[in-house]
């Protein structure tokens, strides 16, 4: 059985200077209520790892607006003008990573691999100061694994064993982030009394530490 905790308790787990991975692609499949709980507390200096920084009014976008983040690692920040503003003002560090590289780096962290060898970014500024490896006549960029203190995961349904089902395009980064953090917290839309059917599980409970409701 996984520890079922309240959203408030979950929010308090995130402390100053934590690194947090947050699932979601813009507003789709993102643990919005967990973010709101973080905002009720004082945790700042966070490192935010996410596909994007959403929009200023929603979930992880609000972490930026409220200046809780010191560094962003993301593939896209264009939908949240506040991210660019703070970056330009020197208040926020931003590491832009190609989306396919970001997801592979997180997977490497979660799967115990030493890194990623990707053709993406070769010949671009993304390759600057990185090792380029030639394999069978083609160039690949070595990219490092990514891990985090916390992963905040959205679930369409979850059970008490921590198993998660994700519907539609809500899967996005949630599945892979659930493997790559020290503490994984799921915010399900629905907590089911009965266990999910083993065939319909998107994230096996083994990866999940807390279900926050």
């Amino acid at each position, binding site marked *: 059985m996984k520890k079922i905790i309240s959203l408030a308790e979950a929010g308090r787990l995130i402390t100053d200077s934590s690194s947090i991975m947050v699932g979601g*692609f813009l507003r789709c499949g993102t643990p919005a209520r967990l973010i709101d709980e973080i905002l009720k507390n004082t945790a700042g200096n966070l490192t935010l790892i996410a596909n994007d920084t959403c929009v200023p009014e929603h979930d992880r976008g609000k972490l930026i607006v409220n200046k809780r983040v010191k560094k962003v690692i993301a593939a896209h920040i264009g*939908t949240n003008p506040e991210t660019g503003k703070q970056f330009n003002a020197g208040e926020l560090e931003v590491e832009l990573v*190609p*989306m396919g590289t970001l*997801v592979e780096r997180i997977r490497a962290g979660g799967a115990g691999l030493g890194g990623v060898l990707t053709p993406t970014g070769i*010949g*671009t500024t993304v390759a600057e100061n990185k090792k380029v490896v030639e394999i069978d006549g083609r160039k690949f960029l070595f990219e490092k694994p990514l891990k985090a203190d916390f992963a905040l995961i959205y679930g369409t349904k979850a059970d008490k064993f921590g198993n998660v089902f994700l*519907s539609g395009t809500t899967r996005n980064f*949630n599945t892979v982030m659930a493997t790559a953090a020290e503490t994984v917290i799921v915010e399900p839309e629905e907590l089911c009394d009965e266990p999910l059917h083993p065939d319909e599980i998107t994230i096996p409970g083994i990866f999940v530490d807390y279900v926050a409701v």
Partner: protein
Amino acid sequence: MELTKEQCREIIAKRVAKEFNEGDVITLGIGLPTEVANYIPHNLHVIFQSENGLLGVGHRDLSADGSSKVTNAGGIAVTTKPGAAFFDSLTSFTMIRGGHVDATVLGALQVDEQGNLANWIIPGKFVPGMGGAMDLVVGAKRVIIAMEHTNKGEPRIVKRCTLPLTAAGEVDLIVTERAVIEVTSQGLLLKEINPLFSLDEVIASTGAHLIVPDSLQNLVA
């Protein structure tokens, strides 16, 4: 000949829409490339892949609100076509980087004679991030650039990109409102020309050498 921005976009989107084969899997970039979907011939079945985790993108779902569980890569709620599949970002980029996407259509700031593409950084301007574009350009079997021929008269097709690259040597075809140009190992091959423009006009508005074949086709949008 002066065309409005809207006319340019329509010509480009319509022409790109003719580039596909039955069953092709296509990922469209945001902006102008998205409009290509509106002009796919009705008897041609292609499948649109959305990098956020959807194969079989339908049309905009006007009944959905901001909390929709089925969106495209622009965050817009969409419907799905029969045979659609949902998947995570890992699988999405396995498709994209692994060569399982037949074609991608992207916009550009600059494209050059070597098929280099620059479409993500304008120096001095805010950089929104490359998103999935770098993976798409490297991984898709065919990279089609859909863009207006010039930027306020300034050539976008150049000898060598001066803006930071999105990917090196990956562009296959360039479609503008004036011409269709293929990137070959010999250089840029002019394939089609919009009869609204003269060959001289096209050459003059292009910042790179164009190989002009004897049999130049009309660009039919």
